[in-house]
């Protein structure tokens, strides 16, 4: 499958101290598609995802070699402004972590950081993104209450709205539905399908069925290596590597 890449990873190695978490990863992530990263626990999925928006930088003893290009720009170049790179991507983590402030302020946090002060503009941004994340109706009457009072499912949708409010090009999700009940998971998945016409989405997931439902492109990792990658169709119906076959067949997990 040939496609326009949004993120290009070249010979990426990541070490935590002496332990190597990513081994010479080279892969392209397609533009405006849903890419799923699958693989057993500890294989480096989260590490790969975090390497895309340089969230590995604050980790102690971390060492990174190789290159990651986003929109043709080498994000590990020393001259790059990290905050600008991060702003290009919205992040959803395994469990939602609303910031310790009101629902409104959570969504307005990003835009405010980037200099938007106008009350009316902020109101519009907050409303629009809460609507896109399909949580507006549930919170519109209590925008000024602490975000921590929402249910976990609502919090995750709020976090989606918060991420979208900085107008990213890419959405990174690290098992974003794993803490949610089936109904909430489904709502988030539905969002992703709608959002992929405008955003590049990269999703780490443990759930093979979720990957099958959502993914256009799949990366299968094992012990820090990228074993196989290709269109979802290829990987799920006709994997080339024995290991991928076994994983998808459920022989090991």
């Amino acid at each position, binding site marked *: 499958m040939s496609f326009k890449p949004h993120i290009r990873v070249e010979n990426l190695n990541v070490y935590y101290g002496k332990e190597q978490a990513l081994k010479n990863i080279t892969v392209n992530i397609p533009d405006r598609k849903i890419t799923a990263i699958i693989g057993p626990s500890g294989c480096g999925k989260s590490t790969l995802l975090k390497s895309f928006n340089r969230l590995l930088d604050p980790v102690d003893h971390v060492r990174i070699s190789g290159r990651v290009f986003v929109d043709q720009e080498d994000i590990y170049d020393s001259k790059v402004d990290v*905050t600008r790179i991060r702003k290009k*991507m919205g992040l959803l*983590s*395994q469990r939602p*972590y609303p910031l310790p402030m009101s629902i409104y302020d959570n969504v307005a*946090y990003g835009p405010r*950081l980037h200099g938007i002060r106008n009350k009316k503009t902020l109101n519009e941004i907050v409303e629009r993104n809460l609507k896109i994340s399909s949580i507006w109706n549930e919170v519109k009457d209590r925008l000024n209450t602490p975000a921590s009072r929402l249910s976990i499912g609502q919090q995750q949708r709020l976090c989606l709205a918060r991420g979208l409010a900085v107008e990213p090009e890419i959405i990174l999700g690290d098992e974003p539905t794993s803490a949610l009940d089936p109904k909430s998971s489904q709502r988030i998945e539905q969002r992703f399908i709608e959002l992929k016409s405008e955003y590049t989405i990269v999703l780490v997931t443990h759930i093979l069925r979720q990957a099958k439902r959502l993914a256009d492109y799949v990366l299968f990792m094992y012990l820090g290596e990228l074993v196989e990658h290709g269109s979802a169709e290829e990987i799920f119906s006709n994997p080339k590597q024995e290991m991928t076959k076994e994983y998808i067949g459920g022989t090991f997990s």
Partner: protein
Amino acid sequence: MRSFRKIKEAVATRLMAFLTVSSSLIVFFMITGLYVRSRPILSVHSLSELLFSSSWHPLRGEFGFLPFIVGTLWITGTAVVIAVPLCLFTAIYLSEYAPSRIRALFAPLIDLLAGIPSVIYGIWGLLAVVPMIKNQLAPVFGVFSTGYSILAAGIVLAIMIFPVIIHVSLEVLQSVPGEMREASLALGATSWQTVKTVVLRRARPGIIAAVVLGFSRAFGETMAVLMVAGNVARIPGSVLDPAYPLPALIANNYGEMLSVPLYDSALLLASLWLLVVILLFNVCSRLILVRVERSVL
């Protein structure tokens, strides 16, 4: 044989339970004892008269504690004002910026400061802080000071409460989940923006508890303060004036002036206040910390 072991077990358990209960009862007995012994002065003077009169003439039967209370508050306040910003930045640096190696080295080192006897701090105050205030600082402001002052006591106390404030704040900051920082960074915030708007906001109750804990430690500290505060029973006008804090009054005079009628009772009343105030502060900060811990889990 077996039954003997069982008896030993039962005795040991009961004994330990008894010791635990009695050590916490000590506080209760202390408060009761102090109250009973301070009743004589309360039957002569009203509480508000004792608290708000500044006339301290035990020989004439006048026991106005105001100068001592004000002195204690000034010194404690000065110490807290000096200590809080320094401790906060230290804790923020150690928690948010320092590599784990540095944190592992300095956090215990700072805790070590807590183990230094307060008389050593007092001597350091006498040898370093008092002359510095007398010879360098006071002349800059064009005033005379012997150096024995609120400021000297405040500086010495500030350093004494560093460990507790830094230790507790550091723990509170470290309890803020890493993912919350990541969430903020991922939106394009800088580290400092993240610390300021997310980490500190989340840690605020715990940091307040740390400060209250430091405050109560400073409030009751006796030895070091007694050595450098000057101990003059007058309401101070500035931080370069001497002051006579309550704990120093008690330590200096109890056992010496007891021939003066009611003196003994007055000092025990002062001790009672001190004890109650410090207990209250401690309980408050512990309650806040317990709540902080719960909200993290």
